[in-house]
């Protein structure tokens, strides 16, 4: 899973009021809609897609079929949406990676984000937390950075693979904190937590939902969160930005967005945007998302477009730094 930086601060409720004037064919949607998800059924991006498309289907009056096309970090889902060549009836939800870092990390990507993708709306964001074992000697971020700074690679961290959100966030953190940590790639957050609990590795960045229950069980502790504001699902966890020598604008977030193939009717995109904004304003939906570690977002297609551009730049710079190191 991959990451992004900025929290969408827009109140989804406010946005949903600005329902754009619809200039579209009144007959749409006249058939079942397809939403591609680049992750397997039951995975976090899949569950998120289901939470949003269930009420969306009710609003549109047409069933929505979730097409799970897992693989290549979510890239295959987007490729399949584009291959379907059924504009106005096929869409996708995706994490940030395939739209931001994939052009750097995936050869033969098969699509150009700027040219082939029409952003619809940012669905939700998730910050990451810095986690260590419960008996780690330091209790706060300053202590962690001091321990990590003793010598290069004094501390190790786990990620879910090269170029993953956990990897890029840790590299961004090391850069800003002026330390060098040893990267140990794993394939899932569950493996990373197990390795931290088993004292194989020292730390890791992960979604709060992946860490909280181990914190409650007294096996892990959280030293900070990468969002700019405290996060409801991780109460009492201090924000990392501005702490222990980290710059005040430090932030790293995963996100999930609803997208369409370029060339999709503008009216269709406007309808979807306002419907999804309305869904995200529903408190029950917000709670379901939050239970899974996602903060409901919302906003306009243009804001999503900007977010993609910003994050591509930020993570591009981190990737440059990683490439230069090797």
């Amino acid at each position, binding site marked *: 899973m991959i990451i992004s930086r900025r929290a969408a601060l827009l109140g989804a409720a406010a946005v949903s009021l600005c329902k754009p004037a619809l200039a579209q064919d009144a007959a749409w949607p006249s058939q079942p809609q397809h939403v591609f998800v680049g992750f397997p059924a*039951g995975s976090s991006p899949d569950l998120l897609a289901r939470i949003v498309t269930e009420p969306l289907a009710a609003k549109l009056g047409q069933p929505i079929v979730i097409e*799970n096309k*897992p693989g290549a970090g979510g890239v295959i889902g987007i490729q399949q949406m584009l291959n379907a060549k059924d504009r106005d009836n096929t869409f996708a939800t995706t994490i940030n990676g395939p739209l931001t870092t994939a052009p750097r990390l995936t050869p033969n990507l098969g699509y150009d984000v700027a040219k082939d993708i029409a952003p619809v709306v940012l669905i939700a964001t998730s910050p990451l937390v810095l986690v260590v074992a419960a008996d780690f000697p330091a209790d706060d971020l300053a202590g962690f950075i001091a321990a990590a700074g003793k010598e290069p690679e004094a501390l190790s961290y786990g990620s879910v693979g090269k170029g993953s959100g956990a990897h890029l966030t840790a590299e961004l953190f090391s850069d800003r904190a002026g330390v060098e940590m040893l990267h140990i790639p794993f394939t*899932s957050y*569950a493996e990373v*937590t197990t390795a931290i609990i088993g004292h*194989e*590795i020292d730390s890791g960045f992960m979604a709060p939902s992946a860490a909280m*229950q181990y914190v409650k069980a007294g096996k892990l502790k959280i030293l900070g969160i990468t969002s700019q504001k405290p996060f409801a699902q991780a109460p009492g966890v201090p924000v990392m930005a501005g702490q222990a020598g980290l710059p005040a604008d430090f932030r790293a977030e995963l996100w999930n967005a609803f997208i369409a193939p370029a060339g999709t009717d503008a009216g269709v995109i406007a309808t979807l945007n306002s419907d999804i904004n309305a869904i995200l304003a529903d408190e029950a939906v917000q709670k379901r998302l939050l239970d899974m570690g996602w903060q409901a977002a919302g906003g306009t297609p243009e804001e999503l477009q900007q977010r993609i551009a910003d994050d591509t730049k930020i993570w591009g710079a981190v990737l440059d730094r990683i490439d230069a190191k090797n």
Partner: protein
Amino acid sequence: MSGWEGFLHGLSVAVQPDVLIYCVFGVVLGTFVGVLPGIGAMATISLLLPITYYLSPEAALVMLAGVYYGSQYGGAVASILLRLPGTPQSAVTTLDGYPLAQQGRAGVALFTSMISSFFGSFIGIFVLILLSGVLASAATAFGAADYAAMMILGLVAASTIGAKHPAKGLAMVVLGLILGCVGTDVNSGVQRFTFGQTELMDGVNLVALAMGLFGVAEVIANIHVAERTGVPPRVALRDLLPSRAELRRIPFPALRGASLGSFFGALPGTGSTISSFLAYAAERRISRHPERFGNGAIEGVAGPEAANNAAAISAFVPTLALGIPGDPIMALMLGALVIHGVQPGPLMLEARPDMFWGLIASFGIGNLLLLILNLPLIGIWVSMLRIPFRWLYPAILIFVCLGVYSVRGSSFDIFAVALIGAIGYALSLARFNPALLLLGFVLGPLIETNLRRALLISRGDAMVFLQRPIAAAFVIATGLLIVMALVQTIRRKSRGAQEAA
């Protein structure tokens, strides 16, 4: 709550009518999808996922779990009758189950597999009740070095399976290891042998490989007999049941298999695959007549089937008690729980004892149901062999394509299965054993990542494999196994030389 109290409490949950009904539904459905080649628990559970929104979390989990272990019973049917394993675990069952079927003893093989599966499951449940706490901590005690050493032991032990032609067996393992290299390297992100195909970034599809090597290859091999019009004679009920001598060969292999399965199943990752291969290798080694293996040895069916069913039960320990899913199906099950707001993990046993113990109790009920359901079905399954090949084989190919497609909805995988099938046919002509290829393929990437991870963590110090007690034990066991094999070979050679002199 102690294990037994918990289990009794769980029984009270599992016999609630709504939970019980979904348990029955799950195991029946699981049996049938398990029998269909290629369409396995994974696809079925994905399809059932949206339905679980409308069920209580207990009923949902019990139903999905029923599909999972029910499909293990069904999977053996296709492996034995048609040499069509859907998973690497049931690939081992083809080794002796299919020869038995060809000798007209399909009923005996099926009976053995059902009884052993049942036996394995119950031992798995007992182990779970007694040792749920210990098993859960085993998973965190295992580090990268330990996993690497354990898997190397598994590979070495199992590579004796094709002992008649050791070089051919080795060739298959190595080919499997090479195929396992395809995909994105976790450490560097480099694409290995993907030839620019995005579909290959996550490696070769395991189901496509298993279906191609076994199923499609078998269909091709039988094309020349497809015109056969004669139908095999009806099998009498008497022939379905094993003789007394055969019955006696079931309990001990099943017991050994179940113990291996219960232990290895609790380790996330490859537990159940390793355990069924190890169970087979162990039976072969213990047997006074190892030459019977591969030609229809009852023990060769009983051991692995008990092992993979026991492993299917204990695989729930890391999933529920640690939140670490051992395989994609377990990951899916985890997702189903998350939908219901249940977070599997260290708090689950205390926070949701109803769910944990209810599930365990439902395993007991479900397995009993499976045995009652499956024993009478043996006759029907066997009569499937009486379907003329010209109908049966095209139908199999359709199911294979459906099954492979269902894994991740990729038409690329259908072409892959066709190509792999052709290669599998060539391998079977040359009398290579594809089960070993599958083992190398499954274990290779895991050995590689864990070995590299262990060395990264130790900052390059290889002594980590001897300093960690668990790893050291596996390394020593592997060493002993190799020495034993060498001594045996040298003795046999020198005896041969003496006889010749």
